[in-house]
């Protein structure tokens, strides 16, 4: 990037010439320097595209690193908490990485592109951390954010859209799998991954073919309800799926200034990602210690009575005759598909075991006036929304 370009406002993704035609609102926010649409027409409608047809989200600003070299597996295996040896070429792993204190730096997806060659995809940037983690490993870390344009294509008709796109064999692609196709002479990578908890794919292509891909995709989805979606819709789907968002469910550990504001994988309900059978990985010693000692926090998924959204609420438990403050809500919404008032929150252990009853202090405003309710909430296990179509292989055509 030239010195001149540095000062030129928000960056535009390779899909910008296409998405701008759909953009009726010009409402965007900053995502790592890029303008990322909040919504193109109306967030609620776009949300239903994800749950009812196909929503297309431009995830090009996602930070991407290419990891290659003889030690790439060893490097990743030491970096993340889960066992990367089990992730074969053509597979994708959701993973978290921690600092030495066992606190989560970030989560992301790791694509095993080809034997020994990986792509790490995350919301935050990690070149400094990865470079430190690479000391002593024969590995190349190449940031390729701007070299790969990406779209999330998510929703019940997305499989049919893929078929219409002419992707032979896509019906055999299982969840967390990836395949390579030819698209106008460029490699198109398709992975069955997403941030919506629904049937869906993510498409990865060289920026030069981004517009052509967009056109082909929207042609393929013409009769399948395809529409571009913004962050607002994606965020709703994310909460229903029970996924974590950095800066909401956790703060990247290296950015925390105050003590105790970071979270360990255990505290985020990610026990299943921590594999102690590996003799070494970043955070192992601290996490083993935490496992013995017990964690301080627990991430809870709450089903809250009533219909008042629990934004920014405190969470309480009843102890003796008193309500004690045990934590707070990190993400909340009314779920249109589940018809549930749902939320993610962070509470102090031992509270928040599945099945526990907690209370949420909700403030809501109606015509200037504020009201307060103490709403009963049940801790639930698993995602709020998890339709069978998400993992059916082959998926049912629309």
């Amino acid at each position: 990037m030239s010195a001149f370009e540095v000062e030129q406002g928000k960056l535009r993704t390779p899909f910008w010439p296409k998405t701008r035609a759909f953009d009726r609102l010009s409402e965007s926010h900053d995502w790592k320097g890029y303008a990322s649409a909040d919504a193109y027409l109306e967030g609620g409608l776009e949300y239903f595209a994800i749950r009812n047809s196909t929503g297309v989200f431009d995830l090009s600003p996602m930070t991407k690193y290419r990891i290659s070299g003889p030690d790439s597996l060893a490097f990743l295996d030491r970096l993340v908490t889960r066992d990367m040896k089990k992730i074969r070429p053509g597979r994708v792993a959701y993973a978290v990485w921690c600092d030495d204190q066992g606190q989560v730096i970030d989560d992301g997806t790791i694509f095993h592109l080809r034997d020994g060659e990986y792509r790490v995809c995350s919301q935050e940037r990690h070149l400094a951390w990865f470079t430190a983690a690479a000391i002593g490993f024969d590995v190349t870390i190449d940031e390729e954010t701007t070299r790969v344009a990406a779209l999330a294509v998510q929703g019940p008709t997305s499989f049919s859209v893929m078929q219409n796109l002419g992707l032979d064999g896509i019906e055999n692609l299982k969840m967390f799998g990836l395949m390579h196709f030819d698209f106008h002479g460029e490699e198109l990578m398709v992975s069955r991954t997403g941030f919506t908890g629904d049937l869906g794919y993510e498409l990865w292509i060289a920026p030069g073919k981004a517009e052509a891909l967009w056109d082909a995709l929207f042609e393929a989805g013409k009769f399948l309800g395809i529409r571009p979606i913004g962050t607002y819709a994606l965020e709703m789907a994310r909460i229903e799926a029970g996924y974590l968002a950095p800066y909401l469910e956790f703060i990247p550990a290296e950015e925390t200034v105050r003590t105790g504001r970071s979270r360990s994988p255990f505290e985020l309900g990610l026990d299943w990602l921590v594999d102690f059978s590996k003799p070494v990985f970043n955070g192992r010693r601290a996490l083993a210690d935490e496992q013995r000692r017990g964690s301080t926090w627990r991430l809870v998924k709450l089903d809250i009575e009533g219909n008042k959204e629990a934004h920014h609420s405190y969470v309480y438990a009843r102890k003796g005759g008193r309500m004690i403050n045990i934590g707070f809500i990190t993400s909340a919404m009314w779920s249109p598909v589940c018809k549930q008032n749902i939320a993610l929150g962070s509470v102090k252990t031992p509270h928040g075991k599945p099945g526990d009853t907690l209370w949420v202090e909700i403030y809501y405003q109606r015509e200037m006036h504020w009201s307060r309710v103490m709403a009963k909430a049940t801790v639930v296990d698993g995602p709020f929304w998890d339709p069978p179509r998400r993992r059916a292989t082959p998926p049912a055509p629309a």
Partner: protein
Amino acid sequence: MKTYDAIVVGAGHNGLANAAFLAKAGLDVVCIEKNDYIGGATVSRNLYKDWYYSNCSYVCSLLRPEIFRALELHKHGLQVTPYGGSCTFMENGDYYASYPDHEVTYREMARHSKHDADAYVRYSADVMRQCRFIRDFLLTTPPDPTSLKPKDLRNLAKIGGKFFEMGEDRMYETIRFWTMSVAEYLDEYFESDVIKASLSGSGIIGTALGIHSPGTAYVLLHHYMGDVDGNVGAWGYARGGMGAVADALCGAFQGYGGELRAGSGVDQIIVKNGKVRGVALENGDEISSRIVVSGMDVKRTFLKCMDRSDLDEEFYNRVRHFKIRGSSGKLNIALDGLPTFPALPENSPVMDGDLHFIDSMERMERAYDDWKEGTWSKDPYIDMTIPSFTDPTMAPPGKHFMSCFIQYCPPLVEGREWTDEERDQFGETCIEQIARFSPDFKDLILHVEVRTPKEIENEAGLTEGNIFHGELTMDQLLFNRPIPGYAQYRGPVAGLYMCGSSTHPGGGVMAAPAANAAREILSDLKRSNVVPENFGDD
């Protein structure tokens, strides 16, 4: 003869703030100023036509908001406007800039090093953690670690508690931060020479140390721990120049009924039977009071304005060896228009920020080597701002005021007094450095005021022209500042207090020493306290 409740010596920002708090508490206070204008080093001077020079201090961040609010400085005309960004011009024709917007700064950093752009996130958090740690103690009298008084033990425990609260790992890192050199600290995060050079400037401004000297990481913190409206680390301009800070403090002081006597300085602090009795002015007047508060630095206070026989020998010796080294100079320049810097894109917003012309760590350190040899840096570190870019009141329309702070500049040249010719050479050195990056700069110059430590000492009364009233090294910080055993604002003589930057928490236009001193004085007088506590920074 009238006897005042208190005499405050020096109408610099600390003297005025201290006087204002004492007056607010109901004391009958007079503030003495040697110059016929107030402000000390917090001053706006009209030295050329319609230009107003912030000719000593030039930017504002450290001024404690608690004090601003308690003294209602906005009612007395003070307005601090944040500015953003900075730029370091490079020998190879490129530059490295930073911007108020995080993402733009990221892109600019990444242009020089992607690694460093990412590392900056951790660096910022780590430095911010240290800021949070120290900020809580700015408006607190340092505890005496050798004392067993409940108040000292409580305050020590408070510092200990804050430290402990960081958690084990960060406690160790805190120890390291407080003892490292800024160069070594930056080396642990960054690889790009220009990025490190740019960040290291804050580690040496006002300090007779080089970037490789241990302890300079703390000096960096001293420049980061301020804020503008809660935006920690941000800097701003006082509208109308830094004199606006002094004017507002003086307005508050006079509003509380205080009396200002400018035009003749204190010749002698009068002591009788081990107690302060007042001051004698240079013009022969005597003013009587049982409390004298000195806003002057400790060397000036005790070595120039007191009788040696009134002081304990050891105290006297410690003052004599108090490190207060002139290491900075200043150029104040009236410009016929805005100079252009061809390296920058047209209308670049970084012109609003501070500009620098040293692009490597080696050049930074070599600038210090010159100072050690008793000369001004031949390739100096210049912190250049154009306040009129943000504040239209400082220069006529279309014209500009430029402030250049220069590190390093010695108080004596190779051990002897400056000659006028040398002063001009020093000015020329700085102008030439800037002109290398701005071809039209020299032609735009209408007037230059060159200030070596000698001029700063003569006018503002800072010993050796040291902007902090004493080096910010570990041996002169917290309970060691200014002198171990005298860190709680009380002098060695009953009724004598210190409220200047020689005391904790040190220099910069902060006014915290003044507030802390006022709190101690009021406590000694058993008056109710009017000095605010820390807002706290959860």
